[in-house]
């Protein structure tokens, strides 16, 4: 099946964006990445711990495979801070893609919509491939597309909660209305949630905790890979309408009595 995902002029066979935080160790992380067949990996940008510089340097563990790196602006509480982090990330020379993540609430980590739109506009005009993490509001997602987002990433539920897709109606409206790819980001907890997102018309999903904190991250990575394919095929095939009463699968004529 030739069904590629195109973002920022790049084509991907995989529709999974995989986070790199919270795995039990680098070995399990690498095994999980491999099992997931993800081609896009997300990262955060943080100060180097100068007492132990190698401790957190995630990229040294990744080996030779080429990935599309998607750094995020987590920790930013304003558009200004997000822009600064994005520019620092780009100056690493590793990627001009940026996941905008701006939150002013530590408890929910829900994205601040106004600052997210501002940052999207500034960074898209500055040549970044901008993928904003946003709340699941169709009108807001549309505004992010207009502001120059290369893809829009509405959350299913708050980061790390595993609550799945709390408002499937909104997610479906978003996938219907946007012309840029829609990546459901945050809150997905299992393969079933992933299939649901894809059946609602998402072009891809972004997961971290669901895989990193599963009892068996490597197997969950594989499950998610299949769930994406199942959900995507189901979406492309078209589900039957829901009806209140039964329809027999066989004709009721000619029954021997």
């Amino acid at each position, binding site marked *: 099946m030739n069904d590629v995902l195109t973002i920022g002029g790049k084509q991907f066979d995989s529709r999974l964006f995989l986070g*790199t935080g*919270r795995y039990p160790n680098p070995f399990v992380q690498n095994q999980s990445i491999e099992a997931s067949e993800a081609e896009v990996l997300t990262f955060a*940008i943080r100060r*180097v711990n100068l007492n132990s*510089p190698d401790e957190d340097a995630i990229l040294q563990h990744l080996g030779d495979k080429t990935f599309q790196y998607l750094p*995020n602006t987590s920790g930013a509480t304003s558009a200004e801070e997000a822009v600064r982090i994005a520019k620092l990330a780009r100056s690493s020379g590793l990627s001009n893609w940026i996941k905008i993540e701006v939150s002013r609430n530590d408890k929910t980590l829900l994205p601040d919509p106004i600052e997210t739109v501002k940052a999207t506009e500034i960074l898209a005009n500055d040549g970044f491939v901008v993928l904003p993490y946003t709340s699941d509001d169709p009108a807001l997602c549309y505004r992010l597309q207009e502001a120059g987002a290369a893809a829009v990433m509405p959350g299913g539920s708050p980061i790390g909660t595993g609550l799945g897709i709390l408002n499937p109606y909104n997610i479906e409206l978003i996938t219907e209305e946007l012309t840029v790819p829609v990546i459901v980001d945050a809150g997905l907890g299992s393969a079933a949630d992933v299939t649901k997102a894809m059946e609602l018309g998402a072009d891809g999903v972004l997961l971290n905790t669901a895989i990193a904190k599963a009892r068996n991250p490597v197997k969950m990575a594989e499950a998610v890979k299949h769930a994406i394919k199942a959900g995507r095929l189901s979406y492309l095939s078209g589900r039957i309408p829901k009806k209140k009463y039964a329809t027999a699968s066989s004709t009721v004529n000619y029954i021997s009595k």
Partner: protein
Amino acid sequence: MRLHINGETYDLEVATMADVVHHFQLQKGLVATELDGTIIDRDRWDDTELRDGMKIELVQFVGGG
């Protein structure tokens, strides 16, 4: 000279940004730098001269979602 790096104060025998990266034995390809609020790209590390009291940020990619 006295420098403020990642929120701590250090007395280092350095002249340029490249010297600072070298001093902490950081992997060049993985680190991004900021000097007094201005990003310094890697190809400018060698000729970015430092002065006493300057503020430096050294950041890198870490695990995240």
